[in-house]
C-alpha cells in the first residue's frame, strides 16, 4: 500500500495528466458522426505513433557495442515511423475523398 502511495506521489503530475487526458479524450470525440469513425480511428492510430519518440531515445543512447539495443532500437524506429507516416498518409487519403464534395 505504501509503495502505491509513494508511486502516486512521485508521479502525481503524470497521474493528473492521465486522468485529465482520459476525460478530454472521451469528451472531444463524443459526438463524432458514424461517417467519420474510420478516419478518426485511423487518425488516432497515427497519433499513438508518438511512441516513436521513445524509439528514437532508445536508439540514440545505445552504445556502439550494444548490438541488442542497436538492432532492436533500429527496428523500433522503423516500425514507429511506419505507424506515424503510414497512419497520417492513409488518414489524409481517406479524408481527401470527403473533401471533393461541393
Amino acid at each position: 500500500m505504501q509503495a502505491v502511495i509513494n508511486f502516486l506521489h512521485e508521479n502525481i503530475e503524470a497521474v493528473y495528466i492521465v486522468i485529465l487526458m482520459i476525460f478530454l479524450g472521451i469528451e472531444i470525440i463524443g459526438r463524432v458522426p458514424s461517417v467519420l469513425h474510420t478516419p478518426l480511428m485511423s487518425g488516432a492510430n497515427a497519433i499513438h505513433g508518438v511512441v516513436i519518440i521513445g524509439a528514437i531515445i532508445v536508439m540514440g543512447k545505445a552504445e556502439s557495442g550494444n548490438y541488442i539495443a542497436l538492432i532492436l532500437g533500429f527496428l523500433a524506429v522503423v516500425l514507429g515511423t511506419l505507424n506515424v507516416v503510414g497512419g497520417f498518409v492513409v488518414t489524409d487519403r481517406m479524408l481527401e475523398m470527403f473533401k471533393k464534395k461541393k
Partner: protein
Amino acid sequence: MSGILSICYLVASVTFILGLKMLSNPATARKGNLIAAGGMIIAILGTIFLYENDGKKLGNYPWIFSAIIIGTIIGTLAAKKVKMTAMPELVSFFNGMGGACAALISIIEFDYLFRENKMFDSTFFSHVVPVGHYLAIIAGTIIGSISFAGSVIAWGKLNGKIKDFTFKGQHLFNLVVFALVIFFAIYTYQSDVKVANIPFFITVALALLYGVFFVLPIGGADMPVVISLLNSFTGVAAACGGFLYNNKAMLTGGILVGAAGTLLTILMCRAMNRSLKNVLIGSFGGTAKSAVGAKGAQGGYKEISLSDAAMVMAYSKKVMIVPGYGLAVAQAQHACHELEKVLEEKGVEVKYAIHPVAGRMPGHMNVLLAEADVSYDKLLEMEDANEEFKTTDVVLILGANDVVNPAAKNDPSSPIYGMPILEVELAKTVIVNKRSMKPGYAGIENELFFQPKTSMLFGDAKKVLQDLLAEIKNV
C-alpha cells in the same frame, strides 16, 4: 536547450488534442489530421536534435535517420498504394507496428536494467528497480505485444489469409494464458537479478500468444471493433513509454488515444447494437448453425434478368441503393455513381442508404462513395433511410447482406438478433445483387432473399452495374 524541447512537446500535445477534436467533425477533419501530423514532426525533430540524456546528446544519427527514411518510404508507399477496400486492414497493420515499437522499447529498457544489475551480488530484481519504473516497462511490453500480435491476426483475417478459428474451452484457455502473463510479470520482478531475463521473455512470449488467441475466435465482421480496441491498447502502451521517459508528449498522445479509442470502440458496438463483451466473447459460431438449420427449408428464390431489372428501375420514381462489402470488393463505386446519374437523367430520384457498419468498417461506404464523387447529401443514415423506404419503389442491394437481414428483428435465435437493420422490405420491390447465394460474413441465411418481393441479380457488382447501365440507356 531542453527548455525548447519541452515547448516542442507542449506544442505536440496541443496539436494532438486539437487534431483529434477536428477529426471528429467532417468540415475540419482533414486539417485536423495535418495539424496533428505537424505536431508529430516537431516532436520527432525536437527529440532527435535537442534531447539530452544525463547531459549527453543522442548519438547514432546514421542509424536513426536511415531507420526513419526506411519507415517513411515503406509507410508512404503502403498508404498511397492501398486500395480503398483494403484500408481497414492497413490501419490494423500500422497499429500493430506501433504496438511492436512500444514493446521493443520496453524490451530494450529491460535489457539495460538486466545488464546493469546482473554483475551485482545475488539480489532480487525488486530491490534494485523501483516499482513504478518496472511497471511502466512491463506494462508497455505486455500491452504492446498483445496489440502487435492481435493487430497482425486482425490484418490477416481482413485480407482473408487467416480464417476464424475456435475450439472448445477457448475462453478458459485465454483466461489462463492471461493469468500466466500476469503471473510471470510479477515473478520477473521477484526473481534474482541474474536470471530475471528468463521469466521476462516468457512474459513476452505469453503476451504475444494471448494477442493471437484474443483475436482468432472473433468473427471477421467484428474486426473493426477489435482494431479500434487494439488501437486504444497501443495508445496505452505508448503512454507507458511516456511514464518511462517522463515524456509529456508520449503521455498525452498515448492516453488521449487510449481514451478516445475506447469510446470509439463502444460507439462502434452501439452502432451494431451489441455490447463489447458480446463482441469479444460471443463469437459467431454455434448459434449461427442452428439458425441455418431452422430456416433451411425456406423454399426458392427468384432471379431477375438484367433487362427486367433495368426496366423496373428506369420506370420507378425513387430508387434506393444499399451498398455493402460486395460493392467495395468489386470496386464498383464508380459504376454505381454512373448508374445514379443515368437514372437521374431519366427523372428517377436516387439515394443511398448507408448502414453504420456496412462494409468492413463504420464509414467505409461513405469513404468509397465519396471517392466516386457521389454527393454527400444523397447518402442517408440508417434512421432517415428507414423512413424513406416506405416511399421507395426499388431498393437495389449491392453486396450487402447482414445489414438487411430481417432475422435481426424477428428471430431471437439469430446471432445478429438486435442489430438495427435497414428495413428494405418496406419498399415495393427489392433487387439483390450478390455473387452467389452464399451467406454473408455472419454466416447466416437471409430470409429476405426468399421473400416474394425480392428478386436476385447474381454476379460481380461492377459487371452487373455496367450491364445494367447499358440496358437502362436503351430503355
